[in-house]
């Protein structure tokens, strides 16, 4: 087990190094640059832009810039944002909570509902419920989140006035109830798509298991259906879901760009897009490394969890 972990860790480090080199190159090779947004400012000159670029070290050769960045990273210094001048880790940390809250609640909701819908659809195959769930999932997957979010705002905020039109909390309030009421719409909008995905996977996984011999045997030896379902079917059907959930971890933390935009939610998705828009290299690199690490951790965690849940699997 320990050997396995060490090998995985070593692989991960090599992978991270590659990701950082490729990411850095792609970012810097894209034309434009952090200063192009200032070009149309009244009175701005090429000479002034060049001076500022020099002061920021942007006129150095790319490999030098990369090594400089990497060397600082090794010492725990992720650099400072070009946009607001704060340390990168502080910038990322400042957006983590919002994303965790939204993605956490919506993922929990969609896994719970998705599992239920999937299992029920599989056990009552070709029933009205199954058809409705299938069609519902198709529709939910096809609706653009942006549009669905705006319609929800139009209906529940503008027409009915039940829910706030966005934002994480009322400025100056910020009580638990205030957070909760702001959370409802974005959570549901975001969960809608995920429920659809999740329920389809769960349905397929359950169907795979339900036709296996051991299920028939369990039924034949007279076990109650409920017991067969929970003890044998669902437990086995959840195994591939664990892997899937592990792969979802990075998504949870990298945010939901569209939902965050519609509901003005200050999360990681917005941060990533804004930082890209400003060519804020240090933050984009920070986010890139951050999500690469999460992907690696998520995969490792999923493998470990499957081993724990399924005694037949031995790592090593």
């Amino acid at each position, binding site marked *: 087990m320990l050997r396995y972990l060490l090998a995985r860790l070593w692989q991960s480090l090599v992978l991270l190094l590659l990701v950082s080199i490729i990411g850095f190159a792609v970012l810097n090779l*894209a*034309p*434009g*640059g952090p*200063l*192009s*947004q*200032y*070009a*149309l400012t*009244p*009175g*701005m*000159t*090429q*000479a*002034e*832009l060049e001076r*500022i670029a020099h*002061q*920021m070290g942007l006129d150095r050769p790319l490999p030098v810039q990369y090594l400089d960045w990497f060397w600082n990273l090794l010492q725990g210094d992720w650099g*400072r*944002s070009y*946009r*607001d*001048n*704060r340390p990168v880790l502080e*910038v990322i940390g*400042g*957006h983590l909570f*919002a994303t965790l809250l939204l993605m956490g609640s919506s993922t929990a909701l969609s896994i719970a509902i998705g599992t239920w819908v999937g299992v029920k659809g599989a056990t009552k195959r070709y029933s009205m419920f199954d058809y409705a769930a299938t069609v519902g999932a198709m529709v939910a997957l096809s609706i653009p989140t942006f549009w669905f979010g*705006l319609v929800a*705002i*139009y209906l529940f*905020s*503008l027409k009915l006035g039940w829910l*706030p*039109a*966005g*934002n*994480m909390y009322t*400025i*100056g309030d910020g009580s638990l109830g205030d957070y909760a009421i702001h959370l409802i719409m974005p959570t549901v909008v975001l969960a809608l798509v995920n429920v659809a995905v999740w329920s389809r996977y769960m349905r397929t996984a359950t169907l795979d298991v339900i036709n296996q011999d051991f299920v028939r045997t369990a039924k034949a030896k007279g076990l109650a259906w409920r017991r067969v379902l929970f003890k044998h079917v669902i437990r086995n059907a959840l195994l591939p879901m664990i892997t899937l959930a592990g792969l979802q971890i990075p998504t949870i933390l990298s945010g939901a760009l569209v939902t965050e*935009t*519609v509901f*003005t939610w*200050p*999360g990681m998705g*917005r*941060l990533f*897009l*804004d930082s890209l828009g400003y*060519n804020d290299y240090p933050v984009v690199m920070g986010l890139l490394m951050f999500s690469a690490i999460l992907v690696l951790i998520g995969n490792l965690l999923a493998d470990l969890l499957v081993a724990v849940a399924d005694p037949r699997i031995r790592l090593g």
Partner: protein
Amino acid sequence: MSKKTVKGGVGPTRRQALTMMGLAGASGLVMPGLLGKGQAFAAPPDKPTGQVIIGFSQEPTVFNPHMPHIEVDEGIHFSVFDPLFAVNPEGKFTPALAAEVPTVANGGISEDGLNWRVKLRDDVTWHDGTPFTAEDVKFTLELLVDPQFRSWRRTGHDLVRDIEVVSPTEITWRMEKPYAPYPSILAATFIVPKHILEPEADRNNAPFNNAPVGTGPFKWVERVAGDHIELAANDDYFGEGPYLERLIYKYIPDLTVLYTQFKTGDIDVIGLQWITPDHYEEAKELPGKAVAVVPSATVESVTFNMERPQFKDLAVRQALYHAIDKETIIDALYYGLPAPTETYMPQQSFYYNPDLPKHDYSIEKANALLDEAGWMPGDDGIREKDGVRLSFSNSTTAGNHIREQVQQFMQQSFKEIGVEMTISNLPPAVMWGEYWMMSQFDSVVVGINFLTGADPDTSDYFRSTSIAAQGGAGQNTWQYANPEVDELLAEGGRLFVPEKRKEVYLKIQEIMRHDLPFLPMFQYATVRGHKEGVEGVTPNVNVRIDSWNVGTWHWA
């Protein structure tokens, strides 16, 4: 300069604001809702009350006013800091930290423009209680040219020499050469505190940059990154106001969402980039909201690279101008909001030339001009002369849908006169990078604010020594070179009396209208709005941001 000093304030007094709104209202421009309903203006409260939330579609992130920043950042700067003197909507300077605006008339500026003497107020304190003195002004002017400091802009400041603090309320300096735009630059130069910034070893990364301390009507409270910035009333403010207890700048990243939150009332004032033109018809009918079309200083033009052989012939540029159906473009594509123009100077400016020849849409005249100049159709119907085909590319920001339609419309029109225009649009970071700055384009559709504040000087754009592609320092991306314009610009830069300067700039506009290095299309107008009951929201064409006078805003 105006002798009429506003009592203790940066912004216009209520009466000035009323007069202005009345005038504009008569021309059907500003706040028809408010005036139409005949609401009386309420007096501001005795002490700061309530809060206003301003929505921006970009996030303010740079709070040190002297570091590279974008427009929305200036909203915070105007709230937290003060300049020596500010510029009001009529383009007049009003004293802020200075006791009076220095002019040639009052001896603040010497006749030759070389020696400056500024008298300062003695009743100003920084938000931390430290008194403001002439030392802070000296520190700010020196910081701007400090080679270690990542200064936003040095133009003008790099001419300042021998700064001397005569007393805590008086400062003098000498200019290396006369530079008439300097008052306008100073009006946009916010004074920063010496006692906080001087001890910092690295001023580029000072804590001050994320928690600014100023002298302005509002004090820094906090920033929730990606969401909003909160400011609180500065009870010790020396000028008029503040009348609001709390001021919030809310970041709403999408224009549709920004407008929706304006409709739902989640924001009180819709700031940059305001209401999109396609929502204007609906917005002006919204109950409880005051919505108005406000001209901005940005002028849209079709810009030529004058070094391209196709554009060297004046007849070609004139013909292309004749072939553009400006009226249809404005009415059909821009919802009739912008005002057509013949010049780069905003029509609100004191220096605007109203007597330029009017644009005349005429395919016949365009064809006649080209025929006369010897540009004859080739086998493919495209005109050519001496081996040069009248074919060129046109570029602008990819994704700007209205402009893309304008391009297609022009493409059709140009075809009618035997001119081929291809469209090649680029993402913003590429478009406005070296492609623009180093004149690598054939032609471009672009909106430019040519002025620094209210000053008419455009040397950075029109002088032959400002061509970056030829090693110059400036943004003369047309590569336009005209000795007469060079001469006039130099003259205008040496004159300090507005009436004398005006003649020079009227002449320059006349020449530009004749030479047509760019085809002036229209002056942009934006659709702005706020809740009825927020008073004091006054447009100012001379600044880049709505909240320039936020200290005087209040609820009715």
